[in-house]
């Protein structure tokens, strides 16, 4: 049965109907006459590449933006949602891509924030807050420690807190904007259990993602968006990841990259007994050694927080090395500055895009110049060469399909995926000898992932040595020539992609050796 487009008399069975939504931003038509039909009690997935207009559509439903045209009906009744208050009043709750929690406050305090229970003299009633939060947490099976501080709990738990927050305010319709982008595979599984429980309790869930296997795993119906338009509406049972991918990208896509066989060349980067501390000055990398050869991709797998990001920062000169040596292309770079290291031929795609890899206030062109802004062809005798900066940026933006292709736009106006493409474009354009690539496809959609993966493989073909740090096991397995598993600051072992399964790798990431993982996986 194809997707059923409801008639007006059926709208009362629909939690959300959005009709003819148009939203024009200064430079982009973000929503172009979008229709969305969400049946009450379903889990409805919205998929689309970055910049397709998903968040914009949801932000209008939640009252953060006002639509230029179109109407919204909640449970069959047309209403005007001018601000989030209106949305909350009709039972809509939204969990944003970036969490909006207060770090030093406890879970319970965060959940009631803005709607706090009070006692005499209008004083905050912490006891009641804890009680009420415990109650809803048990009611929906969302386990949390109500007294833990937000800054001490994992990202997955923080997300649970965000969901509880919407439930506390009486949400019946939950919008989750790319909730899995920040989660580990295990946390994603747990989230799905939560979503199914919520559905059993009669909640309606709008689930935004661009990971297609998640759509298949959890949703009832799917709406596909591309370039601000709806390009597909289909019951999940009747579709496949391949079909969804094609609707999303508008062409045939390769879901898995093909890697050519290749002999690795000479050693380019050699790390010996490296020790690095974290921000609290506690050991994070506890003596690791490895090397990377020309034309080789060395993958580093591990659950977040096991020293990978400290390793990344130390290799690129952003963090002090406590002990050990790093030799790059025959030169000791153990104490070199980021500029020296870049000059020596290492480029870097940082895991933390907002903090490190871009200046969001700068234009796309200026971001592309970052790191080479002082030398030819970007500068000449201390003066910026704007003509060259613009020409090179235009070319890169086109080649890497950054949308919109406006090099004078501030980078903060690009969607996350397009920001990442901009960063990748810059770092690829360095013509590096070695590239440290960390979480390169986090938050990206299939089309962009495919593109970035094939570009990484092109670099390997061009004899670049690549260190790939990623939490995505599939990415590590499909790209790497060798894989190191990091656990608690140490390397648990080295494997090749064809000798381990995803499951074994997962166990090693939890602290097992390969042998232990093998025997456990057999059981």
């Amino acid at each position, binding site marked *: 049965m194809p997707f059923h487009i409801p008639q007006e008399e059926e709208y009362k069975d629909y939690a959300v109907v959005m009709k003819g939504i148009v939203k024009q931003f200064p430079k982009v038509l973000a929503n172009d006459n979008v229709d969305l039909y969400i049946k009450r009690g379903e889990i409805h997935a919205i998929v689309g590449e970055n910049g397709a207009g998903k968040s914009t559509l949801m932000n209008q439903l939640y009252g953060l933006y006002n639509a230029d045209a179109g109407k919204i009906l909640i449970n069959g009744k047309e209403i005007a949602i001018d601000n989030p208050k209106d949305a909350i009043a009709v039972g809509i709750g939204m969990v944003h891509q970036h969490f909006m929690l207060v770090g030093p406050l406890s879970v319970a305090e965060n959940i009631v924030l803005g709607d706090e229970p009070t006692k005499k003299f209008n004083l905050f009633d912490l006891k009641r807050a804890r009680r009420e939060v415990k109650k809803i947490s048990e009611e929906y099976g969302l386990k949390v420690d109500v007294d833990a501080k937000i800054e001490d709990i994992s990202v997955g738990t923080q997300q649970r807190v965000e969901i509880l927050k919407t439930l506390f305010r009486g949400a019946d319709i939950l919008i989750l904007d790319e909730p899995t982008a920040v989660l580990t595979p295990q946390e994603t599984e747990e989230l799905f259990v939560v979503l199914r429980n919520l559905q059993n309790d009669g909640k309606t869930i709008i689930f935004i993602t661009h990971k297609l296997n998640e759509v298949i795993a959890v949703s009832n119906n799917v709406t596909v968006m591309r370039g601000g338009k709806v390009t597909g509406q289909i019951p999940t049972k009747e579709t496949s990841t391949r079909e969804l991918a094609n609707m999303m990208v508008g062409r045939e896509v390769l879901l898995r990259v093909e890697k050519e066989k290749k002999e690795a060349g000479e050693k380019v980067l050699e790390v010996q007994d490296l020790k690095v501390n974290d921000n609290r000055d506690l050991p994070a990398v506890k003596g690791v050694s490895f090397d990377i050869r020309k034309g080789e991709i060395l993958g580093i797998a591990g659950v977040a927080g096991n020293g990978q990001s400290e390793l990344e920062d130390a290799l690129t000169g952003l963090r002090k090395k406590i002990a050990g040596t790093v030799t790059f292309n025959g030169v000791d770079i153990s104490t070199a500055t980021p500029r020296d290291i870049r000059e020596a031929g290492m480029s870097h795609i940082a895991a933390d895009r907002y903090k490190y890899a871009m200046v969001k206030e*700068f234009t796309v062109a200026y971001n592309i110049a970052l790191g080479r802004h002082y030398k030819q062809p970007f500068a000449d005798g201390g003066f910026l060469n704007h003509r060259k900066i613009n020409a090179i940026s235009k070319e890169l933006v086109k080649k890497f399909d950054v949308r919109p292709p406006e090099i004078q736009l501030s980078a903060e106006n690009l969607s996350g995926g397009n920001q990442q493409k901009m960063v990748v474009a810059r770092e690829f354009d360095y013509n590096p000898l070695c590239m440290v690539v960390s979480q390169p496809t986090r938050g990206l959609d299939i089309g962009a992932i495919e593109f970035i993966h094939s570009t990484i493989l092109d670099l390997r073909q061009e004899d670049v040595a690549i260190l790939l740090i990623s939490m995505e096991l599939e990415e590590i397995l499909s790209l790497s020539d060798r894989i190191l598993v990091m656990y608690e600051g140490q390397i648990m072992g080295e494997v090749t992609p064809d000798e381990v399964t995803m499951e074994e790798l997962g166990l090693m990431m939890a602290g097992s050796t390969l042998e232990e993982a093998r025997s456990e996986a057999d059981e």
Partner: protein
Amino acid sequence: MNKKQWMRVAIPIISIIISLLIASIIIIWIGEGSFTDRIDFLVEAYTQLIKGAFGNKTAVMNTIIKMTPLILTGLAVGFGFRAGVFNIGAEGQMAMGALTATIFAVNAASLPSFIAIPLTMIVGMLAGAVWAGIAGFLKATTGAHEVISTIMLNWIAYNITNWAVTGPFNAGGGIPKSPEIASSAKLPNLLTSQASFMSFGILIAITAAVVMYIILYKTSMGYEVKAVGFNPFAAEYGGINVSKNIIVTMAISGALAGLAGTLEATGLYYRFYGTLSSGKGFDGISIALIGQNNPFGILAASLLIGALRTGSNQMQFAGVPKHIVMIIQSIIIFLVAAERMVMTIMGWNKKKGAK
């Protein structure tokens, strides 16, 4: 011009208009007689204000003399802001620059003017640069916040300069002032009118604004300064030495403030007075704010404030207290700083998709 750039121009202008309207209401309110009398009074007040600032050659000269140091201290603070440092110490840097330049200029009689004048300026700028550089160095190496350290340096400068002009460097006569500088170090006059004169310091200040514009928008150095100001982490990732940039920015900022003091000493007073800076360094903060840290915005803001201050004397003759000008200036600054208020008043705050 995109919307953001347009707003940067529009907000100060609208703030100025609103503050003039508020001042008008106050003037009408303190006026006497019938409503038309009061309106006449208002028109008279503003006429005198404009006449006082631009009515004749002397008025124009006085306006320019007032705006010259404001341009330079405005540039000093504005440049610092661009790298994310808040230099509250322009006052002290101005005083130290002026004092050091004066000491040099007093002893420069043996040098010909074409050497003495530039050399005096360099000495004054260096003194300001060193004074501010201390705060930059402390911030870069120990993380000491520049707001605190520059305030403390202001006090130290205040005491050093006072000690100098009351003690070893006093000209006598019971006034805290230094001896007169050598005539070869005096800035030549650009304009004279009756007993008044105006040095060519304004040309130097305008040149400084142009140079700052070129640095900020055309050079790799300006690129680095702005990158550090927006996001020091990304700057570091891009191979920019954040500490070095903070120190250099502070030094440049201090050099501009030092130049402001030097021009006052060599172009206007021909000596160092204990009250030479008298708040002009702090005015730089207001000027930078109104000018939105843009060199040309700072020029315009200095002209505005310089003219208001010069014109206010004449306005007093019409019976309007001079303090009205302080009120106007304060409201402008308040509205520019609280730009959201202006946006709300203008109805620009509607969420048109802006985050």
